[in-house]
């Protein structure tokens, strides 16, 4: 069996990179004493994967770990033992046992919901009114760094939803293995639409609040419930 654990990456640990988060989870699993499955081979490691890597600097409210168990355990026991074994800043909110044949989370992942907090309220006042005009554009070109250099992409088809309130932006953005839209692309697009100079620094806190997958009827639902 596999266990899907929904966990938080809080503000305090937001600068920890994905590899270090993975290691922290692996050590947490080791501390928990839960019967986790190890890989074979010379250097055995715990079989755990993550639905999506969260960038360094971003927080996550409902990130998902996918742990292969060597023996069945109940969801309650998994949740209790993991929360005793994980640091305060990476606690789990739920766990769900699934069959080994359950599709890989990474393959089912479709989108992420993000909360973006513009730290400077004056900048927020300039950026938020640009949401409407930007979304009304036929295409929303932004620069994206790729392996072969910087290229322009149209991010309009990658945005499911975008709205603003006070200092916050709420965005539902495409997040698949093939294509994804990053929160800083939204910021860049808004800066352009608002006529803000490219070099003007905007401090922004990114919180990914939910990962989404596609339900049978084509609608987006929380990935962990799929």
């Amino acid at each position, binding site marked *: 069996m596999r266990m899907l654990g929904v966990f938080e990456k809080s503000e305090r640990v937001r600068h920890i990179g994905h590899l*270090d988060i993975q290691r922290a989870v692996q*050590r947490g699993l080791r501390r928990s004493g839960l019967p986790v499955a*190890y890989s074979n081979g010379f250097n055995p490691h715990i079989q755990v994967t993550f639905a999506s890597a969260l960038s360094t600097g971003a927080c996550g409210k409902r990130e998902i770990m996918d742990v292969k168990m060597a023996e069945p355990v109940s969801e309650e026991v998994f949740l209790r033992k993991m929360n005793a074994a994980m*640091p305060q800043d990476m606690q789990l909110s739920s766990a769900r046992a699934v069959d080994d044949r359950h599709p890989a989370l990474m393959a089912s992942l479709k989108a992420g919901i993000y909360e973006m907090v513009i730290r400077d309220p004056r900048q927020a006042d300039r950026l938020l009114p640009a949401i409407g005009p930007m979304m009304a554009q036929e295409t929303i070109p932004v620069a994206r760094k790729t392996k072969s250099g910087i290229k322009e992409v149209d991010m309009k088809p990658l945005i499911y939803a975008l709205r603003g309130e006070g200092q916050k932006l709420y965005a539902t953005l495409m997040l698949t293995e093939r294509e994804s839209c990053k929160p800083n692309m939204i910021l860049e697009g808004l800066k352009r639409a608002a006529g803000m100079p490219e070099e003007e620094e905007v401090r922004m806190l990114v919180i990914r609040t939910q990962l989404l997958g596609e339900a049978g009827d084509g609608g987006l639902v929380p990935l962990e419930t799929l």
Partner: protein
Amino acid sequence: MNMNDRIEAMLEKVQKAPRYTGGEMNTQIKGWEEAPLHFVFCFPDTYEVGMSHLGMKILTGLINDQDWSLCERCFMPWVDMMALMKEEQVPLFSLESRRPLKDFDVVGFTLMYEMSYSNVLAMLDMGGVPVERRDRGENDPIVVAGGGCASNPEPISDFIDAFMIGAGEEVMLELNRVILERKEKGWTREECLKRLAQLEGVYVPSLYDAEYHPDGTLKSFRPNCPEAPERVMKRYVDDFDHAYFPSKVAVPYTEVVFDRITLEIMRGCTRGCRFCQAGMLYRPVRERSLETLVHQAETLVEATGYEEISLSSLSSGDYTCLPELIRELMRRMKDRRVSISLPSLRIDSVLKESLEETQQVKKSSLTFAPEAGTQRLRDVINKGVTEEDLIEKVRDAFQGGWSSVKLYFMDGLPTETVEDLDGIADLAKKVVAEYFKVPKGERARGLRVTVSCSTFVPKPHTPFQWAAQDTISVINEKQEHLREVLKIKGVNFNWHAPHLSFLEACFSRGDRRLGRVLKRAWERGCLLDGWNDQFKFDEWMEAFRDCGLDPAFYANRERSREELLPWDFLDCGITKDFLWREKEKSDRAETTRDCRKGCNGCGIQRFKGLCAYADPKRAGAPSPSLVPYEPEGGNA
């Protein structure tokens, strides 16, 4: 912006922000109001270095385990962070509550190496604490320090209110209790320091005066008040096997230098290598029992989730039940996929069977430390290892499937000649030859012999405490020679420029006048000296000139038997007479036996019941230069 917002903004800009954010597993501590005494444990180097240090984990755990005290952590920020802190006027803060150092009752430093001293000054200054102790007022924290370098506290004594000499596990709490009592009873700073001076193992530098001869050597060193003892006794842990051990240690999120469980299996060493300060200072040898170690290992594996345990001591191969310990640890750890590694193996004590057992779990490179290239020089330094020993162990290793061997040597040892340097190359060649003696199909591929050479630094409390260090130009010539003779196929040669070792030699045997140099160097921008890209040798030399002091006086001068040495007021267990006897034997290239084969009368035998190998009959001939000391009840 408030302080926290300003810190958050800085963290977005620096490299390696997790150095400053804390919150690692097992570091969640009580709130500020929950304990009356606030201690901040400062490590004068970066997070990655500090979090690898076992002593820090023990002492922070110990202080936090008391309901009346809390302990937060602080590390030396990297240069990018320091620049931002200066720009934003953010004081150096603790990882846990993000309070500046000046808000704590006690600011404690651990002094692991001399070249971290400039960081101590920088951290105090950034944390809002007056750098020099004489400038501190009634509301400033008490600044304390301990660790290996406290065995000669004088060069940094202008900046520290009280030093803890020896093992910190017990005196740490005694010291904190006095400082808490001060808080409750409103004692003045001076009264508090005088009370601290009465604790065994505590040295309060403001209560002592030094006078000098015209030639710069020390004339006298005396207490200036009745509260301060003439001689300060080092502290020992009463019962090493049951000494405090934290059941939960912090697990860093990011990679640190030693990212694993360290089990201290033994304290002290009986070998008596004459260059080795730790071997002299941490006497007598005391072993932890197998039961205690297995228990500690299991507790730590459960609390940390680490994948690796390393056994640590000065000479792990001397641990009485080493094969049993390794076997037992491996048996219990196998299912948990925890590997066991053995660092600092001494070549004459490696057991073939334990080698084979470690290999099952993990095969890394093997390290040997012959230290010198010829038998004569190894006899001078009392490194009781022969070429046959080394070759035999290397042969075992190559036959056992290893292909990577590291050999550690020192250059600039007393009496060293070109022959001794050539001996290093000869030894390396013989090691390479052993590899090729193993038939091609049976040996592991990819021979790698690494020869590392560090420059010898004479240390206080060793038989070489009177010796002159080779000058920088002599060391340069020697290293040039080594580079030539070590051009051997399959051999890599590592060396370090001698400048840092030269400064280390100044500060390891310096007197309190060096405080001026230290301050001047820090004012000139010297910081993070242990980091090659930050080390500013020329600025250090300018600082010496500014203060009218000659570094060669400290590093390159041979001392006489009669000279009063700046650390003579400390009784670290071994006597000056023993050290001098050892120095004379070293001059004659005569060895001294391992203490386990018979007591050598180093001075520890004066303390009843402290050393398992002490010969009480030798206790009747203590050093005349020592104030006789009779411990009450002894330290069983």
